[in-house]
């Protein structure tokens, strides 16, 4: 069962990896031929030296991802804390709003957000992307962090309060250090979202050198820059996936436990 699952999940990815390292002739004639010029780095050279080069998109995505993660956590931590302490109708209303926005498909917002960006002069501004991104990540982030706050024993904060620590200090010195694992898994999920977001990045950014990875890949796919058989495409997809591959493999425990724990308690 396990090998079947791995085959299902990894075979399409393995095929990309293979494609990125072989010559066009090898792809067309099939893997049977064993010529000396079978393997090649030419595909990678092509995307690395393209204009703009692929590392530019990776850099842009990383910048937006970092800004989005910081902004989301800065807004989500106080919100989750307030929501956890709040009772009654307001708590119910906010939770319901968060659930509704969490399942909402982003693509339905692109048109109005584009107009907003244009009227505020935010188009073609890489960092401005983190504003809508943070909003789109907030529902999940708040729900996950609220569940984490709920896990902390209330006596802990009471004790800190009796020590005379104000709210900011209680959060900084007592609560947040204990929440580090939940903060980390939330941050990773936000970063993943930001790295992968497409419709807003596509419509807000029109200058190629400012594009994040997903619209850049789609643009390359739409142009005839690289033709069949896809060697350069595959190289671009491998390079674009590599950072996420590393994140998922390094933080797999955080991601899985973050999502599952949040879902259980949320």
């Amino acid at each position, binding site marked *: 069962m396990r090998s079947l699952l791995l085959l299902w999940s990894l075979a399409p990815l393995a095929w990309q990896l293979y494609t990125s390292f072989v010559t066009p002739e090898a792809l067309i004639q099939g893997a049977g031929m064993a010529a000396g010029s079978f393997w090649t780095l030419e595909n990678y050279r092509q995307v690395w030296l393209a204009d703009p080069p692929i590392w530019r998109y990776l850099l842009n995505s990383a910048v937006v991802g970092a800004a989005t993660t910081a902004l989301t956590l800065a807004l989500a931590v106080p919100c989750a804390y*307030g929501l956890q302490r709040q009772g009654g109708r307001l708590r119910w209303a906010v939770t319901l709003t968060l659930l509704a926005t969490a399942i909402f498909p982003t693509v339905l917002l692109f048109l109005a957000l584009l107009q907003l960006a244009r009227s505020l002069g935010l188009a073609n501004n890489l960092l401005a992307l983190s504003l809508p991104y943070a909003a789109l990540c907030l529902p999940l982030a708040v729900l996950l962090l609220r569940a984490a706050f709920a896990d902390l024993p209330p006596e802990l904060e009471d004790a800190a309060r009796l020590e005379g620590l104000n709210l900011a200090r209680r959060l900084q010195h007592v609560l947040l250090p204990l929440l580090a694992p939940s903060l980390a898994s939330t941050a990773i999920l936000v970063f993943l979202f930001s790295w992968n977001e497409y419709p807003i990045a596509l419509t807000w950014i029109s200058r190629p050198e400012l594009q994040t990875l997903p619209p850049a890949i789609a643009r390359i796919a739409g142009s005839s820059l690289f033709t069949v058989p896809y060697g350069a495409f595959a190289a671009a997809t491998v390079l674009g996936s590599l950072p996420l591959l590393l994140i998922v493999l390094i933080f797999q425990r955080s991601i899985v436990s973050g999502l599952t*724990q949040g879902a259980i308690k949320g």
Partner: protein
Amino acid sequence: MKGFPMNTSLVNTLLMLPALLLLAIVFAWPLLDSAWLSTQASSVLTGLAPTANGGANWQRLLGDARFWQDAAGTLRFAVVSVGLELVLGLAMALVLHRPGRGRGWLRALALLPWALPSTVLALGWRWIYNDPYGPLNSLLKLFGAPAYGFLTTPATTWLFTVLADVWKTTPFVALLLLAGLQSIPAELEESLVLEGASPSQILRRLTLPLLRPWISLALMFRLAQALGVFELVQVLTRGGPAGSTESLALYAYLNAMRFLDFGYSATLVVATFLLLLLLTAMGWLLLRRRPLEISR
């Protein structure tokens, strides 16, 4: 400031306010703005300036065969994809739940398709489906079958967009259901085993009934996302062949960005939203009515 704040509720509200404000700007305002814009003519003809045109956009929508075709196609895509994802996601969750060496790595690798960008993966699938050089056609050739136009046969291309979507999002469903499985006390299963229940009986009597809340959550989430499917079809098929895989979101996007008809694009956005609302409300009522029970 020592002791309790004067009014805890006020402090809580203030703490939540920045996040709620941003949510209002990014979710509520666009919907209201689109609803308003759907009553306006705003296209190249009006110099992109909004001018009230009564219900002309909505009248056009009702008579627009392309809209109805896209709506039916999007619905078909969503129902089939989400149905398959729930079944496969449950199977995947059961495999990932079983104890064993390297379970963490297995989970991470199974999760990969979900974590990678949709556009990147859609491009990958375009190559896998490529006619005649893609690996699927190479396989067909191996068996002596003629090459098949996976992305060029109007009657069947939607099935291959479903496959690509199922491949990418099943891990997410599996992860949610895994959370559900972890919340089921092991003693319950052990007691059923002692009673001599077979694995399939345990699944039907214990696991599925207790997983219901998680199945509902996954269903609602995936249904909403699938009804808004956009990048997958835009990159994989561009809505083709012959418009057979065009989704509502893609049609709305094309109206705004290619035909520069913002009024009609807004109408399509609002129509898609209403369809979504209707379906999730129906799903919610349906799931809510049947009480949770452990059948024996």
